[in-house]
């Protein structure tokens, strides 16, 4: 089976407000899919439903053929995430953070794996530093190290490079691409940086008001809609979603 994740007719309603409206898509092995849209479009809601921390109103998410809510603990072993709003405990050291999450994800040969990650993400010198003392770039590297500690086959990245300088953002992007290539993993990536999305994603979905408006290759999609680039298309989707739908 090449599909890692299958989202089918996913709906999330909060009373009369529909945050996610009948969304379906798949993410296959080796794919990096961009989930784009203005603030409040429903991107994080979708990610939360995939993570199993938000129950859909209807429809469902299957990860490796299993239900994201009912089989959460089992499938969570094979997925992981990094999000700007999900902080690692800042009062623990870099090593302690990785050790605790390594135990939770039941990582084999944990100590060796942590050493690998510390080396790979240039965190060795910070191993005994409290996470709260790291710069935002170092913290992002730690977050990403935690996100791949269990070598997940699905990575959910909610604005992984937000608030990073271009150099660190580039390092993180490179690490993610390397990880996907090496492990044949699938990635669902949200970002407001259109250049980044063009660079890393093989496919993008534009969301507006909880619906997928556009779906396609980030390199050809702007041209198909008579726009110069992805950023211009994003602005169009954000400001005039109805026109796009027509």
């Amino acid at each position: 089976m090449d599909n890692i994740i299958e989202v089918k007719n996913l709906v999330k309603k909060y009373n009369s407000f529909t945050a996610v409206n009948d969304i379906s898509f798949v993410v296959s092995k080796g794919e990096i899919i961009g989930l784009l849209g203005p603030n409040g479009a429903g991107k994080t809601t979708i990610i939360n439903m995939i993570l199993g921390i938000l129950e859909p109103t209807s429809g469902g998410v299957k990860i490796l053929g299993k239900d994201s809510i009912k089989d959460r603990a089992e499938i969570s072993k094979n997925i992981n995430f990094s999000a700007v709003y999900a902080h690692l405990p800042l009062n623990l050291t870099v090593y302690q953070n990785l050790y605790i999450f390594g135990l939770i994800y039941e990582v084999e040969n944990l100590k060796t794996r942590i050493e690998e990650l510390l080396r790979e993400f240039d965190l060795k010198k910070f191993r005994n530093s409290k996470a709260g003392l790291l710069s935002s770039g170092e913290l992002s590297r730690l977050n990403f190290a935690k996100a791949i500690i269990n070598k997940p086959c699905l990575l959910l990245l909610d604005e992984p490079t937000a608030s990073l300088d271009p150099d660190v953002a580039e390092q993180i992007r490179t690490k993610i691409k390397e990880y996907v290539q090496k492990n044949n993993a699938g990635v669902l990536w949200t970002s407001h940086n259109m250049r980044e999305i063009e660079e890393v994603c093989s496919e993008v979905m534009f969301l507006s008001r909880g619906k997928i408006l556009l779906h396609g290759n980030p390199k050809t999609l702007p041209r198909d809609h008579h726009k110069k680039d992805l950023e211009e298309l994003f602005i169009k989707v954000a400001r005039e979603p109805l026109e796009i739908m027509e």
Partner: protein
Amino acid sequence: MKPVKIYAVFIRQFYLLRGNYIRFMSAFIWAILDVLLWGFISKYLSSFGGATFSFATVTFGAIILWDFTSRIQQGIMTAFLEDIWSQNFINFFASPLKLPEYIAGMILSSIMTGVIGLGLMAGIAGLLFGYNIFKIGLLIALFLFILFVFGVAIGIMISALIFRYGPAAEWVSWPIPFVLSMLSGVFYPVSTLPSLLVIFAKIIPSSYVFEGIKSTLATGSLSEANAINIFIGGILSVAYLFFAYWIFIRVYQRNLKTGALARFSAENY
């Protein structure tokens, strides 16, 4: 349930205590202050001799045991609050960690602080005041077990309350041990309470424990009536534990639906 994941939740709390001596001290300083304060009060009251002496020795023991109960309850609650304060909820709840494993980890960390606190209190009581908390023999294990289960139940219930109504509900948790100590007859016999409050006392497991302790210390043995009372206390504490767990699960399921779990922070409430 996998022990390795329970250990992960426990070790997180252990690292926090180990990593900051102020935090470490704050976990035990109240136990030390309590035992010193009540030790001096008991010593003073004992100087009157007779019935007052008996009251002082019984109450001193009861206070040590009640402190243990409160410490267990607060150990669970503060472990839970740590995850709120550090906004770590998503990392835990979006991981393979199951709810029973999370709760078991919190219980384990509360045992760590509770047992160290009890050891400190018993040690200080023995060394400074010549008071032997273990003089009632093996029965102490039974009393401690009931109080431990009750402390765990209250800790889980308060955590569920915070989980449901947000971190602002934290303030409710601090006076609860005082209210419970009042109804449990820690400092006086339950019969001292007005008849309406006696009804409440009858549904609190700790009241049976403290009545049992007083009676055992006064008579030197455990009567049949007292044994039945302790049995009722034990059953009640287990019932409280199941009820607390059920409430926590219900709140979790509710938060899963409303989205409160995904965006749990002080700002959302």
